[in-house]
């Protein structure tokens, strides 16, 4: 799939042992993932990862459960290590840790279990048997920034983050750069709710932003983002002619924006954790596990994209996005990944 390395088969001998040549039929490769506290149905990257794993299972005739593929849900930060270990103890060949919160846990458990392969999503861990999967969220954010910059009528744009962190800053930085690229006059206001689960706070921030003239808000705030959609939908419902847009995050949030016959979701920045999960799983199964490497999924690797629901984007915007997308792929534009 992705045009990088080919070597690195450190300790991945059992990666495809029994399977041998017959990749088509059932292999005894086993793969598991450990969620962060968001849970497997967080409508965000945990869910996306799980969808990837399910797809991988289906493609390779694996069974859901201890003998094929499964997930472990963490209810608490302290559960990561337990879940990682449970996966190891159940002889899973490859264990994904979903989210940067699992970094320390995966680093520890990986060093204790050199015979198992691990993959960490969203952060970088050291260790020969750990593959680090990161995404170039700033690139995707740049593209939706382009959309925002062009769609805005007021030249005022908002960004709502959950809790301030490197990861969320990446979204903000790329977004800001994208807006800047197409609409230097536009202002991007960045706010953090301090919480990923405060829908009321999200709605209040959105009310404040829309009230002050902002007409496009990009959120990277999980459950707090629910409130952003709520506010936008309310405004739209009341005044269908008013321009209010939300840009979704992580997956296609079109459904969230539906209000009567209108939809307030301008577009979404999609992070294809599923693609990455399938990719890494396949490589591990084929004995090509990229242990010790950092694999960045960006636009080029199809790990980052604009949502498929594009009804609210004009052709002009779509063209511009395609244009910038090409420039990013070609390396003509270096999207910043940190603020300032």
């Amino acid at each position, binding site marked *: 799939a992705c045009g990088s390395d080919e070597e690195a088969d450190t300790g991945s001998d059992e990666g495809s042992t029994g399977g041998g040549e017959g990749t088509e039929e059932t292999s005894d490769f086993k793969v598991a993932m450990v969620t962060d506290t968001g849970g497997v*149905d967080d409508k965000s990257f945990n869910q996306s990862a799980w969808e990837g794993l399910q797809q991988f299972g289906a493609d390779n005739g694996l069974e859901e459960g201890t003998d094929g593929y499964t997930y472990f849900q963490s209810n608490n930060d302290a559960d990561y290590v337990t879940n990682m270990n449970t996966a190891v103890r159940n002889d899973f060949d490859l264990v994904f840790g979903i989210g940067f919160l699992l970094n320390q846990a995966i680093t520890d458990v990986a060093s204790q279990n050199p015979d198992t392969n691990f993959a960490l999503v969203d952060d970088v861990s050291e260790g020969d048997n750990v593959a680090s999967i990161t995404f170039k969220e700033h690139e995707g954010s740049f593209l939706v920034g382009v959309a925002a910059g062009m769609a805005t009528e007021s030249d005022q744009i908002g960004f709502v983050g959950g809790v301030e962190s490197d990861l969320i800053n990446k979204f903000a930085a790329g977004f800001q750069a994208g807006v800047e690229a197409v609409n230097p006059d536009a202002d991007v206001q960045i706010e953090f709710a301090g919480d990923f689960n405060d*829908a*009321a706070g999200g709605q*209040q921030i959105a009310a*404040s932003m829309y009230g*002050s003239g902002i007409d496009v808000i990009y959120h990277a705030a999980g459950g707090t983002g*629910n409130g952003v959609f709520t506010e936008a939908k309310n405004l739209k419902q009341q005044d269908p002619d008013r321009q209010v847009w939300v840009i979704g995050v992580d997956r296609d949030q079109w459904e969230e924006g539906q209000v009567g016959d209108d939809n307030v979701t301008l577009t979404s920045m999609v992070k294809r954790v599923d693609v990455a999960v399938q990719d890494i799983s396949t490589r591990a199964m084929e004995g090509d596990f990229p242990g010790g490497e950092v694999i960045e999924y960006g636009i080029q690797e199809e790990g980052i994209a604009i949502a498929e629901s594009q009804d609210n984007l004009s052709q002009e915007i779509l063209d511009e996005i395609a244009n910038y997308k090409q420039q990013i792929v070609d390396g003509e534009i270096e999207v910043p990944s940190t603020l300032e």
Partner: protein
Amino acid sequence: MDVLTAFEILVKSMLFASAPLIFTALGGVFSERSGVVNIGLEGLMVIGAFAAVVFNITFASALGGATPWVALLIAMIIGGLFSLLHAVASVSFRADQVVSGVAINFLALGLGVYLIKDWYGAGQTPKIPVPFYYERIPLLYDIPIIGPILFNNYLTSYLAIFVAIIAWFVLFKTPFGLRLRSVGEHPMAADTMGINVFKMRYIAVVLSGVFGGLGGGVYAQTITQDFSAGTITGQGFIALAAVIFGKWHPLGAMGAALFFGLAQSLAIIGSSFPLLADVPNWILLSAPYILTILALAGFIGRADAPKANGQPYIKGSR
């Protein structure tokens, strides 16, 4: 942002953020006025949110525009039924009321999420099809200046204020209220006056369930629009704080809830003022909580709970 807009947003977000707290706090007032401590408000909100969302999703196609209202009704009924557990434990079984309240919180969240997983195969429901939307109140909205500020909000926000006034009337102007309060102050005296202490307490606790359910239903149908373990995260405790802050008075509790909503929106709006731009983020985020503590320490001070609050009534003892 000009002052008027800022003000409009301030008031608007205060109103919608407070409404669920007002309802729930009113429930707390009823319960505690009858002498039953209720730290299970959080759980009652959870169960209300759960019921409203599930109902909304299930019956939206059949009920159309009336769905969220009927869902509220269902949330009230389910909340009331659920609170019966607290009533049985703390009134009939002489349970430690704090303990029983803690159990309510655990049970509501556990049961709610368990059932969601069982029914929807996910830890989170889909979005509700028919949420509440802001409404412009006819005529009032047209009043210059204050119209748009005050009269463009969820109907439930006005309902909350209206219900608080009703609650005040019921509690302080009717025989029922007098009896309920007497049971919370001196149950034995009430008993000797022929008032059925147990019955009054049952009614009060069930009312707290009804109101808590309503609060949760409103929160879920106005703000989050779905249900998961993360829907109600501490709002019930804030409502409990509002009960005490408001000195166990319906209008006081309403005021406290509004204050809280205001502090929260101030904190949010504040960050867009250049003046406050240099204030560390955590202070702005904590502002509502800090302001509440300051308000209590500064000018509210001590509050006396109903005298028999927290004590099971045991007939024939003193």
